[in-house]
């Protein structure tokens, strides 16, 4: 019960902050494909992005369920948390596997927002979900590693000081186990840009600040290695569950926004002398979206609880992401349909949120890969790939 009250207080505080960033703010950013720096600064100053960092490093040391509530409220208020959510969870890998020295050096700055760690270089043009086939190499050279290769879909790289990089340190044919040979590095991009690191923005369907990152003989100190060399793939897997649960919570927030918008519009909009929401043809899709959103919400909470209890939430995190991303996309489509022509007009924010919501059945993992996971690891069906 006490925990519940906490979460309500967090919800109210996030809402109050988000009210300072209304639709006009996001429309202007969207039009210019500009980074919502003021919004991210406000979230940082209020400490929300440091929710998961332990108190000893300057964060609030909260559980994932509280962090999920923060992300959900941001989306439900009509804002776009994708501009900032990674600052919350990328540090998890550093927290779990970094040395005491690395944690002391970086975490307090990440907690205060002075250091932005919100870029994660994993995907490559020739290896998306097939992470083990990535080609970016880091070769040890004395006190340094020399990095060569390319990453793609590295979001917010232009707005981050540090980059968590997954690169191959042992050639694939030389490793004993196929999951070995990849390593995690914490790259200080402030020193690297222009010295072997190049970032190129990619314009996309929505305002998402994603980029390509090129490494050309980039020298990074050996101390940038996180944990043991060759164990990087295992390290990132545990971080992915937190990411999926938080993004699922964002989808629940988006679904709530679409449902609230559609309900409001359907109640007010008069056609043939009565509100369109009086027609079951309008009501039922909204009601169905509501039921699906609630089901997804329950799975997100359940996944967060499993995570917080220290269990392996692999199945729950994946199902939460699957159900929530589908619930938000269905609600997005329903909302456009309810608004009719006005759903396409920028000033109602529906078309912008519609474009933003489309991302999450694709990223950070596509629906098909989640289904494969469930089929193979939960139901015991034969591996399909």
């Amino acid at each position, binding site marked *: 019960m006490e925990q519940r009250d906490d979460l309500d*207080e967090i919800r*109210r*505080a996030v809402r109050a902050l988000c*009210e300072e960033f209304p639709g006009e703010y996001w429309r202007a950013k969207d039009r210019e494909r500009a980074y919502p720096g003021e919004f991210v600064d406000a979230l940082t*100053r*209020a*400490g929300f992005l440091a929710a998961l960092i332990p108190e000893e490093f300057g964060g609030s040391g909260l559980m994932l369920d509280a962090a999920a509530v923060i992300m959900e409220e941001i989306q439900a208020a009509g804002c776009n948390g994708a501009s900032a959510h990674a600052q919350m969870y990328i540090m998890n890998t550093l927290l779990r596997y970094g040395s005491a020295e690395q944690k002391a050096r970086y975490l307090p700055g990440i907690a205060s927002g002075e250091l932005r760690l919100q870029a994660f270089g994993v995907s490559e043009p020739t290896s998306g979900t097939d992470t083990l086939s990535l080609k970016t190499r880091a070769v040890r050279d004395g006190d340094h590693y020399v990095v060569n290769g390319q990453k793609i879909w590295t979001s917010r790289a232009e707005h981050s000081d540090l980059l968590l990089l997954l690169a191959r340190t042992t050639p694939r044919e030389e490793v004993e186990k196929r999951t070995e040979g990849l390593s995690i590095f914490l790259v200080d991009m402030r020193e690297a840009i222009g010295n072997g690191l190049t970032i190129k923005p990619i314009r996309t369907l929505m305002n998402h600040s994603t980029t390509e990152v090129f490494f050309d003989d980039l020298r990074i100190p050996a101390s940038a290695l996180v944990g043991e060399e060759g164990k990087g793939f295992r390290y990132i897997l545990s971080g992915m569950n937190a990411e999926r649960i938080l993004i699922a919570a964002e989808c629940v927030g988006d679904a709530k926004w679409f449902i609230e918008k559609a309900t409001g519009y359907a109640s007010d909009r008069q056609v043939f002398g009565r509100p369109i929401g009086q027609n079951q043809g309008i009501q039922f899709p909204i009601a169905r979206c509501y039921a699906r959103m609630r089901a997804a919400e329950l799975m997100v909470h359940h996944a967060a609880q499993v995570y917080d209890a220290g269990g392996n939430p692999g199945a729950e995190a994946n199902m939460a992401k699957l159900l929530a991303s589908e619930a938000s996309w269905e609600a997005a489509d329903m909302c456009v349909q309810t608004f009719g022509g006005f759903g396409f007009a920028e000033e109602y924010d529906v078309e912008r949120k519609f474009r933003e919501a489309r991302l999450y059945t694709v990223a950070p993992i596509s629906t098909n890969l989640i289904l494969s996971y469930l089929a193979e690891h939960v139901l015991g069906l034969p591996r399909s790939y």
Partner: protein
Amino acid sequence: MKILVPVKRVIDYNVKPRVKADGTGVDLANVKMSMNPFDEIAVEEALRLREKGAATEVIAVSVGPAKATETLRTALAMGADRAILVQTDDEVEPLAVAKILKAIADAEAPGLVILGKQAIDDDSNQTGQMLAALMGRPQGTFANEVTVEGDSVTVKREIDGGLETVKLSLPAIVTTDLRLNEPRYASLPNIMKAKSKPLDTKSPADYGVDTAPRLKTVKVNEPPVRQAGIKVADVDELVGKLKALGIA
């Protein structure tokens, strides 16, 4: 110096209120409730005075149902030091609130009581003035700027056509206007700290106050729906219409 800040739980300012079908009041079922915006300004001003060293403790008080605890938690999360809930499910009119606040002020001896000029639900704009009268202390209402110096407080007041500056000797009552400050939002670390701050629960009877209403609400109506306007071709037609309506 202590500062006492009364806060009220009201219907959120973004919510479009709906009148109950029987016309007895506004429907509050499943409606978002928040801290009265003028009270947020009062909390902010008290916190700023504490941060400047003019005050040592900020005490938030609310008179209302158990749910008003949420409002007090928000005040604590903004930075108030402790809170008192005077719990009652009855509707409490400004005079009874003022009497309860006087009893609390007698016990706590604050140097300043900073209130919102009015609550956005009933727009009474009475509690601060009544409290000043009951306590026999000076009041600076509709504050636009508050400066504490020694044993006095200077208040710039928003009045028709400008600003009036008054100097009051402490202890005093101040009510806030919209432009006094921009309230901060609660930060996550402060929300977590607020959990361990003291929140006492009392009842009106503890202060010997009878909250029985003196007023009776006869009827609550929705405002009339705005009628569509008409287009006029030129100024002459406009003046003609205004004359016909008896306006000009």
